């Protein structure tokens, strides 16, 4: 076959390539916003750039950061996970209870398994019921919280007296002075990042979130991909729960109430589209860092907390608007 398609594209390709490279830089608008805040804080306080504060910052970020990574993978696949904080509580409680029976490490493992199972259940409920994930996971989260109350009879659960120190292991300092919680956070989020950006599973996540019908017609099992996203999110919740429990030395049914919203906010602030099919794990982490940073800066600056909320809200708005603006220009 002789094709003489002197299509117009050939000429445009070079131009679009350059534009795409420009777009690359602009894609990092939210990082620019983050750096601007870092710069402002370094200049205005002496304590901000200290090692100990950096260690604290990452430690403070680890819980929301883990949840944000879970929220991001769910959102990218086109669903919400409002059960995150309830799963966190249930798995932390299971972790403590199992730890009493089988030792601390086995308890930790049990918590992670419990988180994965809860994710599996949530995902199955969402996929099978066909109800929009927002409401399906909202209802499921109420059920999970209720289960936590039933399991604990509404009181606090503790590890055995002798193992309380070991149970606190996630607060111990570790490599480079970072807390173990931070290390868990960085490793797990790194793993999820690779999972999403380099594997075919990650590709499926994007496809399912970007156009579920197209994915289905291409033979991708939409439901299974989403269930897997919930499982990942459940594991993140369990780990976050262990960090919180390890810090508190106990677990209870009201742990981390409302934190699922901070997680979703972090994901979206980072620049992941709430409509699905776009975004990246690092964006969730950057969003979580931004939120932590604003709080940290406020505390270090010692401003009157009366104005804190107003400034906080305005900063978030500014950061996402800058991001949005830069990215729009790159289109």
């Amino acid at each position, binding site marked *: 076959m002789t094709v003489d*398609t002197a*299509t*117009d594209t050939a000429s445009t390709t070079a131009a679009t390539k350059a534009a795409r490279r420009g777009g690359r830089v602009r894609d990092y608008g939210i990082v620019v916003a983050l750096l601007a805040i870092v710069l402002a804080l370094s200049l205005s306080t002496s304590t901000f750039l200290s090692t100990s504060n950096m260690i604290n910052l990452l430690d403070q970020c680890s819980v929301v950061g883990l949840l944000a990574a879970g929220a991001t993978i769910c959102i990218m696949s086109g669903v919400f996970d409002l059960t995150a904080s309830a799963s966190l509580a249930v798995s932390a409680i299971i972790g403590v209870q199992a730890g009493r029976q089988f030792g601390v490490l086995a308890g930790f493992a049990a918590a992670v398994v419990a988180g994965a199972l809860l994710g599996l259940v949530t995902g199955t409920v969402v996929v099978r019921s066909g109800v929009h994930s927002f409401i399906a996971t909202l209802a499921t989260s109420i059920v999970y919280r209720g289960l936590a109350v039933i399991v604990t009879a509404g009181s606090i659960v503790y590890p055995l007296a002798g193992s309380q120190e070991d149970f606190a292991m996630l607060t111990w300092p570790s490599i480079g002075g970072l807390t173990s919680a931070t290390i868990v956070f960085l490793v797990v989020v790194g793993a999820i990042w690779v999972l999403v950006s380099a594997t075919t599973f990650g590709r499926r996540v994007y496809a399912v979130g970007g156009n579920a019908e197209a994915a289905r017609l291409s033979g991708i*099992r939409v439901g299974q991909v989403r269930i897997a996203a919930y499982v990942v999110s459940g594991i993140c919740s369990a780990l976050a729960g262990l960090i919180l429990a390890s810090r508190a030395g106990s677990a209870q049914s009201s742990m981390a109430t409302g934190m699922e919203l901070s997680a979703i906010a972090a994901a979206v602030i980072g620049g992941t589209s709430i409509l699905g099919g776009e975004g990246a794990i690092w964006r969730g982490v950057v969003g979580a860092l931004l939120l932590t940073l604003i709080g940290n800066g406020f505390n270090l600056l010692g401003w009157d907390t009366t104005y804190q909320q107003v400034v906080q809200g305005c900063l978030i708005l500014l950061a996402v608007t800058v991001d949005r603006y830069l990215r729009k220009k790159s289109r």
Partner: protein
Amino acid sequence: MRAPAISVRGAGKSYSGVSVLRDIDLDIAPGEIHSLVGENGAGKSTLLKILGGAVRADAGTVSFDGVPATIHNPRDAIRHGISLISQEGALVPARTVLENVFLGRWSNRAGFARRRGDRRAFGGLLATTGFVVDPQARVAELPIGVQQQVEILRSLARGARVLAMDEPTAVLTEREKENLLELIRRLAAGGTTVILVSHFLDEVLGVADRVTVLRDGDLVISEEAAKHTPGTLVRHMVGRQLDVPHPDPPPLPAGAPVRLAAKGLGRGMVEGIDLTVRAGEILGIAGLVGSGRTETLRLLFGADRATAGVVEVDGKALTRPTPRRAMGAGIAMVPESRKDQGLVMARSVRENVALASLGVRRFGPFVRRRGERSAVGRVSASVDIRAAKPDAAIETLSGGNQQKALFAKWLLRGPRVLLIDEPTRGVDVAAKTQIHQLIVELAAQGIAVVVVSSEIEEVLGLAHRVLVLRHGRIAGQFTRGAPREDVIAVAFGQEGESA
């Protein structure tokens, strides 16, 4: 005789009690090019979707190579080697061409995606099809014609035994269309079975071995293509002789005033567009896929903000044009993508048709429902919209009927300037003639019309004058009666200007 590649027995489908496909028996031999034709809403897409697993039949069986098969979902169909290009398009807009072409079957090592493998395979696909598509481009940013090419590439990438294509050529221009048909012939010669749904009957008869005609959900005939002419097919499709001559544009009165003018219009790759359209004139715009035809229309309508140039209506320049201001000046635009730009899919036919002229039929803030119902009914009848129920959500209509509803929406406004992008995309033969007739009548009433179409005959047949775009610039201008070959040559840039 070998067992047919596909054999359908007693297939039926109904939606909310309305039967749209009844008792279909169909055999398709291996390596055959089989064409499905029928009016809009006849059930062609539904039949294809059943084969592709996109919808589940209520009744009937399908067997492949004589072995009965259950197709509950697209996975089953893909496992049986069926690859479907659906009429609505099924791309993931936010992802790259490469990811879309190999959607769900990316090459990988231990679960890690290997882009290199995909890219090599992609290169091979481009070589066989002759398409030119940038593998790294985001699909959302591609012109519609290129998106269609991506879909074709994807179905080829699957190396399917059965290729089911629902109007793959609807937005392709001549040369791409010819390339595709040539490719289909080669694939069939190599043993692939091809099912082709198309409203271009010449094209169908040129390529198909056998033709099946559906009417109203019933199979009318399934015969060798050689026995038929477009005329006989149409008779089977509509159940009667249809002999509407192709309408000619009305003569343009001398001294008709210039209604629409553009001077130096440009944005992005589109540059220096100068054009004038007089009252009662039909201006056609031709060009290759991605030559900037759509962009030009959008600039005229203010859908995209021009970075250079002005648009004038009746000699008055539009200041900072937006669709709303353009509409205020009497311009209307039928966009090329009904799903993305034209219709609110979840709403009813009536709401969609009334959408652009809500202000006309109201009582204070309230919608005058009775007036609306009758006005919409009238205009719907004039373009022959066929819906199962009058208040059906427009997403339940067949593709062609959706297109007619889109047209009806702008007719209801009574515009002074009508810009139409791909006026008959997916519309059946009879309705196409109706729409052409309608365009001619509108022109006769003094409306200035601009028609963009990938179908060169449509442009040449309708327009008083034809502009040819290339690389976003006006490459040539022809008056009525210019030979088709000349126009195509200019579109490709093989010849100098004419006229």
